[in-house]
């Protein structure tokens, strides 16, 4: 009898613990659990803060060592009572990790950076971020296109962009001279005013090189360029503008592909990045951060020789970048300290200079970013060309950003997949590419109330 009892206890005990993970239901509703946690945290932190004036700001982000840590170290030096606990979280894991934490009522960090391409998804997570207007932000002094992307329909400002990231088109001077007869940025710019010009010039390169040289290295890279340059909103009135948006992108991509001016490397892969240093790919979409991360990193010899040039794309656009938001579950002290830190980093001469020197990011605060503030120290990569003017004066002032939608991440992933299919299979035309994109999107967007137009 004893043995039987023992065996039942052993097995059921093990099963209970085994099932706990599977079957444990939310005894508390997530929101309720979240608020209880927040209240508990608030009490704890506020007592700490009032007793010693100490505040700890937590941060999850994918750019800790390069961007956040140097700013945090300096801020802590200036304000010893403010400490930071940054956690590196991979870019693609930011939203799932946050959603799981919200659903389980676990702690959220004080500051969350939101990638430009996922702003809509972040905005869609209910009330996770404070309204920066409550802390006295002056939106008029920042880049208006960027501010609009972090302002919701009610006027709430849920994040502040770290920097302006204008994107241009970079090219290799030696290959331009060889195939186009000039490496002068003004002359190249004059040749490339419209997307059709790119096709004409690309074919000229193809002929001059006997088909060996391509204008661009990757269909995915130029699809990304067309995507960011498009101002068509991804969604409107609860419906996804899939046909309009993808037609815009795929039509250009298939034209470029059919003209034979684009190679089929996958964007951002080590193989694709190696084309920065070869002698068969000439032009590359180039946000300001790509100068150090792509050009100098992948083509150190060419960079040292000043073998690069820069021109504006047909449309001014922003590529990449992130906005920092402050979570509502943080304590009042944490929120205020986080706001002070963010505005110090972006809107003070000291913080913005440090951000520029350590991460290479240029603030979009127009009261700081004046005169020679944005003057880059790496213009020798471009043979002394004034790329600071191209990026931060010529392009930054005409940046347009499509209003964020909750489906931006899905639309981007599908665009990337289909762009590669288009490059790998020349029989896919615009209509087939758009249909493939819509079909794939329909499998990802599981909300049946959302129409995929």
């Amino acid at each position, binding site marked *: 009898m004893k043995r039987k009892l023992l065996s*039942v206890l*052993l097995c059921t005990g093990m*099963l209970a613990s085994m099932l706990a993970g599977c079957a444990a239901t939310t005894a508390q509703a997530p929101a309720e659990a979240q608020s209880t946690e927040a209240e508990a945290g608030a009490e704890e932190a506020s007592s700490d803060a009032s007793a010693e004036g100490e505040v700890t700001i937590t941060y999850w982000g994918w750019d*800790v060592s390069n961007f956040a840590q140097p700013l945090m170290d300096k801020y802590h030096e200036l304000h010893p009572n403010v400490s930071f606990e940054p956690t590196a*979280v991979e870019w693609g894991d930011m939203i799932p990790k946050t959603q799981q934490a919200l659903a389980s009522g676990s702690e959220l960090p004080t500051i969350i950076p939101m990638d430009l391409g996922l702003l809509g998804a972040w905005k869609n997570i209910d009330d996770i971020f404070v309204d920066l207007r409550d802390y006295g932000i002056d939106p008029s002094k920042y880049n208006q296109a960027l501010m609009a992307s972090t302002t919701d329909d009610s006027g709430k400002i849920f994040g502040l962009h770290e920097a302006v990231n204008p994107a241009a088109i970079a090219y290799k001077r030696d290959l331009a001279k060889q195939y186009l007869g000039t490496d002068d940025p003004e002359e190249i710019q004059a040749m490339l005013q419209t997307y059709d010009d790119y096709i004409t010039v690309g074919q000229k390169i193809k002929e001059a090189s006997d088909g060996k040289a391509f204008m661009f290295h990757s269909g995915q890279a130029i699809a990304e360029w067309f995507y960011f340059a498009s101002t068509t909103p991804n969604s409107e009135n609860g419906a996804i503008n899939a046909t309009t948006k993808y037609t815009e992108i795929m039509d250009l991509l298939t034209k470029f592909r059919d003209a034979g001016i684009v190679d089929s490397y996958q964007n951002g892969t080590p193989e694709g*990045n190696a084309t920065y240093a070869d002698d068969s790919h000439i032009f590359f979409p180039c946000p300001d951060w790509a100068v150090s*991360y792509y050009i100098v990193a992948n083509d150190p010899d060419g960079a040292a020789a000043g073998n690069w040039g820069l021109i504006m794309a047909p449309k001014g656009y922003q590529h990449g970048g992130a906005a920092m938001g402050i979570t509502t579950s943080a304590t009042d002290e944490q929120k205020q300290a986080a706001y002070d830190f963010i505005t110090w980093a972006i809107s003070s001469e000291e913080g913005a200079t440090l951000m520029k020197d350590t991460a290479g990011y240029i603030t979009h605060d127009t009261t700081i970013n004046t005169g020679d503030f944005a003057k880059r120290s790496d213009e020798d990569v471009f043979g002394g060309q004034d790329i600071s003017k191209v990026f931060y004066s010529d392009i930054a002032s005409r940046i347009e950003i499509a209003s964020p939608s909750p489906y931006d991440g899905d639309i981007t992933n599908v665009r990337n997949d289909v762009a590669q299919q288009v490059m790998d299979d020349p029989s896919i035309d615009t209509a087939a590419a758009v249909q493939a994109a819509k079909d794939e999107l329909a499998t990802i967007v599981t909300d049946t109330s959302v129409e995929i137009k």
Partner: protein
Amino acid sequence: MKVIKKILTWVPLILLALVSLIPFWLMFSMSTYKSEMIFQNNPLIPSNFLMENIKTIMESNFVHSYLNSLFVSALAMVLSVIVCSMAGFAMTVYQFKAKKFVNTLIMLTMMVPTQIGIIGYMIEMRNLHLNQTLIPLILVWIASGFGAYWMTSFIQSALPMELVESARVDGAGEIMIYLRIAFPCIRPGLVTLALLQFLWSWNSYMYPLLFINKQENYTIPIFVKSLASAYRTDYGAQLTGLTLATIPILIFFALGSKTFIRGLTAGAVKG
């Protein structure tokens, strides 16, 4: 004829071995390159950047993450083997009313995808005030449906009930029977389960991702992923981290390979 037969045997085997080994070699070889140089050269031939990559990961949090992973995986492995073997022993040796029901439940837990239970597990850990520690990463492997099922099946085929009965006749207690009689008989099964649990825990990404919010608690998979900034992924350093991370797995498999295979094939041939 014999030569042709040999060729037909060896060529496919060599090809299969190459298919399996080349990724390993590439992982090592690529870890000797600066990230941006990997595909500007032939990545099959090692370069000279290994020490720089090692320096990069050492200057980050690699050693601490490595120790965390070792701690978590070793503890998860030991505890899981103890609990699962006890469950398997109970399910095999004892007869009790709810046995069939319990067995069905064990099977059912194996059918439920981990992702479904993770929020419940997070709530459980939060209520136990364990969510800022490494303990959730250990506990999750201890009560393993697969482990209980595996040990039950293994004990059924490897432990003769006559031995248990004889031990009882000789006056041995149940704990003594479990430790002295059952344990030696089921060693291959235990080793197999231990290796699998260690491997799963060592490679686990989702649980650390959701539970770890402090750099000091990073495990290897999270550390490796963190070797990327906004616009650059340091593949060279990541692959160096991965190469070093496979060392304990290789050692464990090398030490236990014979027993591991015996465990996997146990019961395959009935005498």
